[in-house]
């Protein structure tokens, strides 16, 4: 009854698998303390009415009923799904294009471009938010540029515009995530065996056909990773929105995480805030599992 941990075929002989748990133990314990345990507490609080001090008052599913019957939460989720377009689909498209370009064309100082494109990932989100508030302001560089090319008529304080605030925030997310996607895809492209491209070229494939026949299918794993990371980022993003617009103007950029903060921490309705947190976590889990499942399905990877 020991084959499970005894040895694995193809691995180093005699190395017990059990020791692997020791390696993951520090990370797992940290995850337990800072991830799992707070989540369990969060679920507990979501069934109470509590201001953070004194005794929580058990209220059953009241908080969930309150949240789910409030039309505000649905418009907030709708905004999150709009953000998925800007935070996830757009950067992945840009990342793929850049990866395809960088893998085909020799560009002088390519490392410099890669660093520049990846740089946003290394900056604290609060700093990014403050910088973009300036960029989008009435006299910021976006409007300066528009004036320069004679488009004075469309200049506006972008983050104060009810129709444009959400796309404006979304484009910050695009800028932020495009570099991450590009780095993932460039790394992936480098693993594609050159003979696949040779074979495609022999068959007479042009750059576009080559991209769809070889590059894209080979990047399936990287696509799943990029999609998972950016979609989760879109659904739970808080700091960028909170620091730049605070959910405004009106509630034009209010997402579930902004509602969570307003109700849970500003109004000290911790139960209601926790209920939003549980719903949001559940949704993120479902979406992440769906993405991974869809990624695993489909045809086997070519030529690995």
């Amino acid at each position, binding site marked *: 009854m020991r084959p499970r941990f005894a040895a694995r075929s193809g691995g180093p002989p005699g190395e017990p698998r059990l020791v692997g748990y020791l390696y993951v133990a520090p990370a797992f314990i940290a995850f337990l303390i800072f991830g799992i345990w707070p989540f369990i507490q969060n679920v507990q609080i979501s069934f109470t009415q509590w201001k953070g001090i*004194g005794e929580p008052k058990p209220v059953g599913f009241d908080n969930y009923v309150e949240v789910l019957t409030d039309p505000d939460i649905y418009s907030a989720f709708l905004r999150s799904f709009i953000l998925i377009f800007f935070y996830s689909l757009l950067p992945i498209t840009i990342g793929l294009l850049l990866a395809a370009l960088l893998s085909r064309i020799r560009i002088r100082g390519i490392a410099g471009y890669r660093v520049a494109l990846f740089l946003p990932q290394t900056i604290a989100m609060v700093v990014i938010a403050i910088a973009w508030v300036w960029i989008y302001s009435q006299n910021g560089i976006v409007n300066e540029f528009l004036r320069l090319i004679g488009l004075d008529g469309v200049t506006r*304080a972008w983050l104060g515009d009810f129709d444009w605030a959400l796309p404006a925030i979304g484009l910050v997310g695009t800028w932020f995530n495009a570099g991450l996607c590009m780095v993932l895809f460039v790394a992936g492209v480098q693993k594609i065996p050159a003979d696949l491209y040779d074979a495609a070229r022999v068959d007479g494939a042009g750059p576009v056909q080559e991209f769809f026949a070889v590059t894209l299918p080979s990047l399936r794993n990287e696509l799943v990773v990029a999609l998972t990371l950016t979609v989760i980022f879109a659904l739970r993003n808080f700091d960028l929105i909170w620091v730049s617009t605070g959910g405004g103007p009106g509630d034009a950029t209010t997402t579930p995480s902004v509602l969570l903060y307003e109700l849970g921490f500003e109004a000290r309705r911790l139960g209601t805030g926790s209920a939003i947190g549980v719903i949001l976590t559940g949704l993120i889990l479902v979406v992440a599992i769906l993405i991974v499942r869809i990624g695993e399905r489909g045809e086997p990877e070519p030529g690995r």
Partner: protein
Amino acid sequence: MTRRSTFTRISALGGSALMLAALGGPAAAQDVQTDGWGDIGDVTIRIAAENASTGSLTELTDMFMAEYPNVTIETSFKDWDSHIATMLNVADLPDAPDIIWGNQGYVHDGALVEAGLITSLEPYYEAYGWDDWFGPGTMDQWRFTEDGQFGEGPRWGISESAEVVGVFYNKEKLAALGLEVPTTFTEFEAALAAAKDAGELPIKLGNLNGFPAMHTASIAQDAFIDAADMRDWVFGREGADYASADDLAGFTAFKGWVDEGYISPDANGLDYDQAWQEFAAGDGVFLPAGNWLTAGLYERMGDNVGFFAPPVGESGKTVATSSVSMPLHISSKSQNPDLAAAIIDYVINPDKGQVYFDAGRIPAAAGAVGEATDPLTADTYTAWNKVSADDGLTFYQDWASDTMYDTMTAGLQELIGGRISPEDYVNEVQADWADFQANR
């Protein structure tokens, strides 16, 4: 406006400290130690304060410790956001600080009272005669009954300094328009029109953050409302109504400013700090805001900036969004509450007024000794005295419910953006209030 009688107020208290003090009369006051602090051995008092108090409080506690070397006062300061976010949990600690800066309204002070974490200051009001330092309307903001009614019941706090929302103005620009400082609302609106005609921006407003419009709109609202009505509404007293003709007239006037182009066209997209710094650099004739900007504006504009109280409407009374600063509370876990109260008495005493003026603040206690050291602080002090004399404090309207801040900030952005009408706005605000009062 009717107010609840003393009888209902006291009967609502149950076994609270006010009742004990009232029943016990002068005898109760004698139970409080008010002097002899040099003879109590080594004692440490810990204070959890907010950053705005840093200058004046450090000086005053140092003076106290010099007088009583056996008393050690340890003060920790946090910025507003951090203090607000952690205050309740700090007060809940087994070794909570003796003195804690609270925050008026249901979310913080209400929760502290409800959880029994702070002690009533009624015995100390009586022992030290603090009643003489504040108007009756002012003191209501420290009251909570134990069943959670704001504005009634015993006083749980007392405050150091005064905050008043009024209008900063650019002296050169106003003079260039050939205008005097407006004192009535009619004069003020005429000045706005004159500024617009002269190609100036009449009112600078940076409302990306949402809250600044609350102050700007209040300048219009205050010309139409009765201060006592607004306080009743803030306290959630029965029958109070925000969707009244007075408030509606105020917001209609404010919307008029937006439509006439009197207000920064990019208001909803302009950051607050950026806005007042642009005003300091010469953009805009008027900047409605609170006296917390005094130091920053004076440093940048010098004698070119002045401040006046909200111009009066038909009532002829000065009404302003104003209150006193965050209340000081004594922890119910304090081992030395009497000493803590003595320190509070020392810090807030009007004879220490000059310390506050030197720090660019307005001492809250009436009859403060001393005078402002710069003309702008002097202007704000004049405005505060005007408001106080007319009992015109409305307090901050967002104290009225736990979600009112978000309702008002989002609603005003929508009003400025033309998404809703003034009627919609006052109805939304009243609906939030009614909902909170019904479920409280």
